[in-house]
C-alpha cells in the first residue's frame, strides 16, 4: 500500500471552559502507534482559547463548529500512513502551571489519506488552576502574626 499524507488535528479543551491556549502555557500533545508505542508526532498546542460565543454561550447542536475558529489553539501534524494505524493520542497541560497539570487521552484508528481535521480530536482536561496570590513565596512572616490569604481560582 502506498503511503498517503494524513492530517491530524488535536484540540485539548478545559472541562466547562475554553481551549487550553498559550495564556496558560498550552498543552503537550503526543500521537503514538498504539501497539508499538512509537511516537508518530508530538508537539505543543499553542494559540488562542477560542471563540467565547460558540464555546460558552451557543447551545451545541450536532455537527456545529465549536472550536475550529480563527486563531484557536490546536496541535496539527501530517503523518505518512501506508495502512490503517491504531493510535493513542494524549494531551498534557496547562504547561505553565505544574500543580494544575492534567492528562487526557483517547485511542482511535487513523486511515491513510482520511484527514482528522476541522474540530479535530477533542480531549477534555478537568481541573482548576489555583494560584496563591497572598502571601507571596518571598514574604517572611512572624510568630503569631495575623495573615491575610488570597487565592485565584480559574478553570484550566
Amino acid at each position: 500500500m502506498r503511503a498517503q499524507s494524513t492530517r491530524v488535528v488535536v484540540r485539548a479543551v478545559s472541562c466547562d471552559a475554553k481551549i487550553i491556549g498559550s495564556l496558560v502555557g498550552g498543552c503537550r500533545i503526543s500521537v503514538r502507534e498504539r501497539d508499538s508505542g512509537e511516537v508518530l508526532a508530538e508537539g505543543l498546542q499553542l494559540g488562542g482559547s477560542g471563540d467565547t460565543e460558540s464555546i460558552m454561550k451557543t447551545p451545541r447542536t450536532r455537527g456545529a463548529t465549536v472550536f475550529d475558529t480563527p486563531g484557536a489553539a490546536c496541535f496539527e501534524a501530517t503523518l505518512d500512513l501506508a495502512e490503517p494505524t491504531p493510535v493513542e493520542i494524549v494531551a498534557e497541560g496547562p504547561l505553565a502551571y505544574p500543580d494544575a497539570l492534567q492528562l487526557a487521552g483517547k485511542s482511535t484508528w487513523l486511515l491513510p489519506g482520511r484527514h482528522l481535521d476541522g474540530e479535530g480530536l477533542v480531549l477534555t482536561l478537568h481541573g482548576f488552576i489555583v494560584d496563591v496570590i497572598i502571601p507571596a513565596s518571598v514574604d517572611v512572616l512572624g510568630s503569631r502574626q495575623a495573615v491575610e490569604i488570597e487565592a485565584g481560582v480559574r478553570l484550566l
Partner: protein
Amino acid sequence: MFHNGEQFEELELAYAGRTSVFSGRFTLPLVQVDYEVLDIRITASQAETRNFGVGRQSVKLVPSAEEGA
C-alpha cells in the same frame, strides 16, 4: 495550613469581590527559630463539572524579637 509539616488551621476562603479571587484570614502559631516553614495548601472543587484543583505555597517564618531571644 501546615507549620513544620503539622496542620494547625483549616478555613474556607470567601469570595473577595474580584473575579475568581477568594480570601480569608488566620493567625500563625508560635515560631521558635528562623526558617520554620508555613505550607499553604488550597483546594478548589466543583463537583457538578467534575473539576478539582490544588494550589500550594511555602513561606519562611521567623520568631518575634522576644521569642527568638
